[in-house]
Every structure is written in C-alpha cells, then in structure tokens.
C-alpha cells in the first residue's frame, strides 16, 4: 500500500507536469491573438545608448556630421568627437537620474563629458562607440530584421525605474530609483493582466537563485547577486513571491531552451541575463554570443514561425546619444537605446523610426492578446506593429552570421572547365575515330587483311 502511495506521489507531479506542459503548449497556440504572433519574448540587456552601438549604421539616425561634444559646455573650447572603442577595456559610466539631467543639461544635450567632471573621467569614454567590426552579429541582425532608431528608455534614470516601466508602465518607486523596502506592493504588472486573461507567461532569469528576493538581496551574502532583483522586478513583489502558482513562473533561463524543445514556450516571456548582460565593463562580444544562442534556439524550434523576439537595454549607461529625449512626463523619456526585433514576420532590413519606449512592448502585448492597459504611459504609447509585415508569409529560419567575413560567392569556373575539358575529351575521341576510319578506308583501297601474318 505504501509502495503504491509512493508511486502515486512520484508519478503524479510528473504526470501533472507533463499534462501542464501539454496544456501550456496548447494554450499558447490556441490562445486567440490579433496577429500571427503567438509567442512574444523580450530580453533586457544593460547599459548602452543607440549611438554607442549604431551611431555609424547606414540609414539609421546616427551621429550627425561634424558632431563634437564640448568638454566644458559652459566655457566652450575643446570638444571631443565620437571615437571608435575597438577592443579597449571600458568602465561602468554613471547612469543615475542626476547624470541624466547633467548630460541633457536643460535640453542642450551637450553635457555628456562634463557630467563626469566630478569623477575626473580622463578617457572621455562616453563619446566612444562600436562599429560593425565590434558588433557584427547585431549589425547583421539589423540588416536582416528590424532596428529601432527612435526607441527610448522609459525613464531618464537607471535600472529600477526602467525595469518597472518594462513590466508595469510605472516607475515603481516615485521618490528614487531604487526598490522600496516593502517591495512594489500592488502596482499592477503586465503579468497580472495576462494571468487574469489566462494567457501563459514566464519570466526567465539567467543564473537564477530563487532565494534572492527583495527581502534578502541586501544581505552581505547576496551582494553580488542582488542585481537579480532589480532586473527581475517580480522578485520585488510580495504577491509573486508568496503565491506558488505565480512564483513558479519565474524560472531559470535553462527552461527557455527546454520549453522550445518541448513545444511549451509560453505566449509572453520576459528574459534577463546575468554575466553576459553587456553591462560595462562586461564584454559586448559575450553579450552577442548570449543573444545569438537565444535567437538560434528559437530559429530551430517549431515556435519560430509564430514568434517575435526583441531585445533592448534598460538604460543608456552614460554613453553619448545625440537625440534629445522627448519629455512625456516627470520620468521620461530617457536616452535612446539599441533595440532590435527578430521574427518570421519582421520587415527585412527595416529601420523603424517610430517613437517607442518600453511601454510600447506592453502596448503590443495588450493589443495582441486583448488585455487592458496598466497606466497612462502604456495607454498612450505607440505600438510595435510598424515593425511587422503580416501580409507576407512567415520567413524561413536563417541563422544570422556572427561575422562580417562573409566569403565572396565561389566561382564555378564553368567556362574554363567546359572549354579545357571539352577540348581535352572531344579532340582525342574525334582523332581516334578519325584514325580508325582512315585505317579502314585505307584498307579498303589497298585491299587484304589488316592482320600481320
């Protein structure tokens, strides 16, 4: 009896898990949507501005010609032009709301170097930029899919506000750019809307430690991993932590790969990185490799033809961007950030100049799955629809290369081969036939046997 009970205990969760998996798969595909997109994934990387990554991208709103940012805008004089970073080591520039204001400098947008005067930054690193040689994969993505060149962070500040706008269309902590001690309380998130509508969702966290939440992240042991709570704002919600059903949807990033393999990818998925976030001084190459692995996994799954995967950057990281952010309210917008979207329905090589921010993704989710908005910001935001072309059939999956060294198309040398071998084969055959014919004719004329006796 005990044995059978034990078997039931062991078997039930497995069976239940499998049933849930099948249900999730069916749910995502069966859930009605207003577009062919059944799966929407949004990855949030860290701390780079649009000009920092795509300032020299042809066709995008990149560096103005002759731009030179003054070292001291008050006094004028020496200025610094944008310069290529190449492979040099970079440091983490300040990216608080104070730095933001100092760089915007009342709308003049020329304080990018002077904002760091107090820290005495000799490198003027803020003016550095990457090129296609440094970011070959991202540039190849932009050439094949969609690059947004007017995508702003939702807030002129750092991570906490922007991550909260990303999930809740609100700053979260109106007083400062940090997590309140009591968490984010009852601020509604997009996941609440999805949960209420029965739309499947997950929050994938790379290198996830479920024990590190807003309640524990400040402890000494968790100091290094505390960013997890900032980047995954749901970990700062009591109701998400205390509700097992909701908490179970905050999962390790590994599940993204198994979900793709098993066909259980949810309708909406947010993702946050860990070491490969591109947060300075972290490697941008490592970030590219990380993003490419997520993209590749999607490409080779059955979900590709009904998915959209986009990634952006939570704040500008202190880097120069020449576009003055529009003011929409007390918090935003912040500077532009690099944002790309891949999908079987994405326009090819399209630079989208629609004014967008993180709440535009919320707008798309609400539009596609028919859930209500969260706040005034997402209600007023522009949609992402301009990036898609739903009139064409879904594009076949093609792996985007991570190199610019695309070899030139090989040459078939057909003309050389046909001419040389044509002569080399036909001439001997014709000659041989001619010789044989000639001998026969000669024999007939002379008469007698050909054989030597």
């Amino acid at each position, binding site marked *: 009896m005990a044995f059978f009970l034990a078997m039931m205990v062991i078997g039930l969760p497995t069976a239940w898990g499998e049933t849930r998996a099948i249900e999730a798969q069916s749910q995502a595909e069966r859930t009605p949507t207003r577009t062919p997109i059944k799966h929407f994934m949004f990855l949030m990387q860290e701390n780079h501005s649009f000009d920092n990554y795509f300032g020299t991208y042809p066709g995008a709103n990149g560096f103005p010609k002759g731009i030179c940012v003054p070292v001291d805008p008050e006094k004028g004089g020496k200025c610094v032009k944008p310069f290529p970073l190449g492979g040099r080591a970079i440091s983490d520039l300040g990216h608080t709301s104070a730095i933001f204001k100092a760089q915007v400098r009342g709308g003049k947008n020329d304080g990018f170097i002077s904002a760091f005067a107090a820290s005495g930054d000799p490198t003027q690193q803020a003016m550095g930029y990457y090129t296609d040689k440094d970011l070959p994969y991202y540039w190849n993505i932009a050439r094949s899919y969609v690059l947004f060149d007017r995508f702003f962070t939702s807030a002129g500040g750092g991570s906490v506000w922007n991550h909260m706008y990303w999930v809740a269309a609100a700053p979260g902590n109106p007083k400062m750019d940090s997590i309140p001690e009591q968490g984010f309380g009852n601020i509604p998130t997009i996941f609440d809307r999805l949960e209420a509508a029965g739309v499947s969702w997950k929050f994938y966290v790379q290198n996830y430690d479920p024990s590190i939440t807003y309640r524990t992240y400040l402890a000494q042991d968790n100091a290094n991993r505390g960013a997890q709570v900032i980047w995954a704002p749901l970990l700062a919600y009591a109701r998400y932590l205390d509700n097992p059903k909701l908490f179970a949807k905050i999962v390790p990033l590994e599940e993204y*790969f198994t979900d793709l*393999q098993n066909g259980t990818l949810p309708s909406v998925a947010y993702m946050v990185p860990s070491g490969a976030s591109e947060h300075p001084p972290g490697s941008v190459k490592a970030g590219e*490799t*990380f993003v*490419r*692995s997520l993209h*590749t*996994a999607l*490409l*080779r799954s059955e979900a*590709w033809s009904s998915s959209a995967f986009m990634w952006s950057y939570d704040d500008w990281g202190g880097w120069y961007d020449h576009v003055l952010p529009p003011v929409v309210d007390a918090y935003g917008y912040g500077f532009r950030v690099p944002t790309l979207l891949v999908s079987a329905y994405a326009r090819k090589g399209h630079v989208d100049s629609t004014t967008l921010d993180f709440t535009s993704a919320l707008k798309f989710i609400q539009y596609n799955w028919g859930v209500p908005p969260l706040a005034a910001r997402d209600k007023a935001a522009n949609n992402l629809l301009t990036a898609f072309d739903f009139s064409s059939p879904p594009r*076949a*999956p*093609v*792996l*985007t*290369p*991570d190199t610019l060294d695309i070899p030139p*198309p*090989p*040459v*078939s*040398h*057909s003309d*050389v*081969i*046909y001419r*040389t*071998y*044509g*002569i*080399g*084969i036909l*001439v*001997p*055959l014709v*000659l*041989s036939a001619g*010789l*044989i014919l*000639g*001998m026969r004719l000669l024999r007939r004329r002379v008469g007698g046997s*050909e*054989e*030597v*006796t």
Partner: protein
Amino acid sequence: MITARPFAWPKRLLPGQAERASTDVPATMAILMPAALPRRSWVHSWLFWPAVAVITFAALWVRIYRLEDSGFNSDEAVYAGQAASISGDPLMLQFFPVFRAHPLLLQSTLAAVYEVTGVRDDVGRYTVVAFGMLTVFACYLLGATLFGREVGLLTAAIIAIMPYHALVSRQVLLDAPQTLFNTLSLWAVARYSSTRRESWLYIAALMLALSVLAKETSIILAGSFFIYFALVPQRLRWRAVLVSGVVFVAVIATYPVSLRLAGSSRTGGAFITYQLFRRPNHTLTFYMSEVPPALGFGVVAAALAGIWLFRHTWRDTLLWVFVGVPAVFFGLFPVKGYQYLLPIAPPIAVLAARTLLRWQAAERLSAPPRRGVWSAFGIRLRMPIARWRASDRLRATATESRWLPVALIAVALVSLLVPTWRAIQPAERSTFLAGTGGIPRGRELGAWIDANTPTGITIMTLGPSMANIIQWYGHRESRGLSVSPNPLYRNPVYDPLPNPDLAIRRNQVQYIVWDSFSAGRSPHFSQSLMRYVERYKGHEVHRESVVERSRDGRDVDVPVMIVYEVRPL
C-alpha cells in the same frame, strides 16, 4: 586416341608470329563464330546478335536495378557536388569546390548533363552506368582482337555481370570511366601489336590520356606500356613513340592548364603532398581479401589456369602486365580503396574467357606429360603407369566433350550472377565498406536536415564522409571532427575544427550528427563526439535507423544516424 608427345617449355611468340586465334576453336564453339561467313557479316550469324542483346540486357539490368534506392556515399557526393558546382549550381558551390584531388573528366561530363537535366543524384548514377555499358562493349573489342569474336562475346558477358564492375559502375565514382578508357587503350595496343599500324599507338596514347583525365592514377599504366614493350620486343619507330608521347602529354595537360586558368594551380601540389603522407587506411592484405570474390573466384581461377594451360604469347604478356602493374602498385600504396583495382577486371575477364572457350584445345591437355604434371616445371617424377592411363582417359573425355565447355561457362556466369545479384540489393546495414554502394539512410537524413534546420547552421560530424553527404542532401555546412588540424594529414579541401569546444560555446556549431559508419571506422572519434553531445546539453532531434537481424533472430531497429541540437552552456 591421344598421342603422348614430349612437352616443351612454351616459346615466347612475338606479335606477327602468333597463329590466328580462330584455328584453335574447338568444333563445339564454331557455332558462335561466323568463321565460315564473310568476316564482316556479323549480322548473318543467327546466334551473335541475340547473344549481344542478352549481354546488353544483362549488363544494363544489373546496373540500373533499384539504382536509386539508397543515396550517395561520400565519394559520390563529392564528385556529383563538383559537377554541380561546375554547372553553376549556387547551392552546391558553397560546399563543393570545383578543384579537388582529381582531374575532372567525369565531373565535367556530368556537369554538361546537369545543364540539361538539373542537378539530381539519379542523373549522376545513370551517367556512370553509360560509361559502364561502354566498357562492356570495349571488353568485347579487346577480347575479339586478341582471341577472336567468341572470346570477345564471353569477355563482354563476364564483365556485364561481374560483381566488381557492376557494383562500381552503379556509383558516381571515377573508376568506371577510368576503366573504360584503360580498356580502350589496351585494345589499341593490342591492335597495334596485331597490325603494326602506328595509328593504333596514337589511339592508345589518346585513350590512356583520357583515362588519366578521369583519374590520375592511370598514369601508372604508362609504366605498363613500357614494361610490355620491353618484354615483347616490337619494332617501334622513334617518331611513333615521340608522337604518342607528345599526344599523351598534350591531352593530360588539360588538367594543369585548367587549374592554371582558374587560378588554382597550387591545388594539385597540395593534394599530392596529402596523398603521399596519408596514413594507411587498410591492411596490406586488403585487396587479396576483397578483390578476388569481387572478380569472381571462377573467373580468377580460369584466368590463372590459362597460365598453365596455354602457350605463352605476347597476348598473355600484354594482359598480365596490365593486371600486374596496378595490382602491385595499389597493393603497396598505403591508401587503398575497394574500387581502385577495377582496371584489372577487363584483362582478367579476357583471360578467363579465353580459358573457358579454348581449354579443350590447350597445348597442355593435348600433350599429356609423360611423367605427370610436375614435368611441366622441369621436375621429373616417377608415376605409376596406371595413374597415367587414368588421367589420360579423363583428359580424353574432357577434351572431346561437346557440352562440358558449355556447362563450365554456364557455371562461371552463374557464379558471377549470384553474388552480383546479392551485391546490388539495397542493403540495410549499419556498417559500410567505401566503394561498395550507397549509404543507407544518408539521403533521408539530408532531406530531414534540409527541411527542419535553419539555413546557415553548421553541423559537426564524426568525419568528412558524413559531412559530404549532409552537404549534398542537406545543404548545410558540415565539418568533420576527425579532420586533422595538421595540414600534412588532412585533405586540403576540408576545414578542420581546431577547437570544437570554442566553436560550440560561440554558437558557431549548432548541431552534431553521429553515424554508425564513421563510428565503426573510428571508435575514438565517436567517443569524442559523444562527449561534446553530453557536455553541451545535446538534445536528440532526429534519428535514422536500419532493420538488422539480431543474434537471436529478431529484427531490431539499429540507429545509424542521430542528429543532436547543442548549445552553449
């Protein structure tokens, strides 16, 4: 009644001194030869044309029977891929460079066919079948020139259903066209020796040059010519030799000239270096175990029996030199391939056909040795008179029988047909000897990969063989784990994976394909490959299996190819 007479060692007969082969024909075989009719009146022979029809039908049947049932093996994929690249197919150009190890006679011919039919694997095989059929005809010419038309017919019949030739001429390999032109050059030399007309020497040089353009190893047959003319002195004018040499060089210059014009002149040197330093892939006795059954034991025995039965003439010298030189060369050359000795099949077939048709009139049998068989070798032994009389009676019975030769020929042909029939059945197996046919399930695997994986991915295979098949059928870049980073030990065409770990971690390799055929040859790399599958969370997404009979008699599914997705950690 047989009259015993002293047996003498065979004299070497020079060209021009040989008696006409037709005078040796036993009465039973006269019906096959229109000797009583005008020499060119083949159409009047009531048996000749039906025999030609049967031989042609049999040759065609064994070469096209279920030809498309299994997909290409690695070599076929390479040669067909080269042809597709020459024809300008943009997809194949990515994976199969035009210039590789060998000259391009077959590939350029196939490319011209592709221009009309489009690139398809069955077209390649049917093109090679055409070369095989022409070889059957060339064998008739060779046999008829040397020993008469009936020997020519039987030679053609033997080649038509010989397992070795049938099997190899069903595959897109260079050896079938090589053998055709080798046979034609051998025929031309035979014609020269018979007629002394220098034009035949030029034709021999032209055909040998074409054979070299098919596969460069035919160059060793130039050595066969030298040895033959050294062993069988014939008056050769220097002018004829010079012209033949010039003609030969001019035709084979097609290969380096084409390389030069295409800007790939270093390719040939790179391949020569590679071939010289390749590690042996088979044992020294490989050909001794594989080739005789492929030729047919009866055929080999009949050919060898001819050495003992018949007086040695220049014809025997010619044929045995063309057997011996390739056999010795490839036997000693470290790199061996099942199909490399195919050029010896026609001369072996001629020798066997001669024995099967002429043995009753053989000098050895018409003059029984006084002291037994050992006296033929100069060893005198005492033999009981009774045994001598018994062997004499047996000999008399055999040589006067009308039906025994027919029965022997029938047995010989059936002994070829049965193994040929078995060899051409599309076998479901998990191991494979290169050169013996298509790879089971390779085409199906490639089709799955083409339909179910993103364009632009890279696959890591165990070795370059499976990589070639995947590139042909699956149109995805594939690299063999076993390809050595050392340029001395790798085919210059293949790019190695010097650091597979790094390649997977950087997402530059997205799939791994394991196959039982390569694993059987290299268990070490098979284990290495599976370690990468485990380390990088390999997830099986597809497998191809064959049905094999287990030891207890049950049919079991044996996986032969497995596709894994891998990803960076």
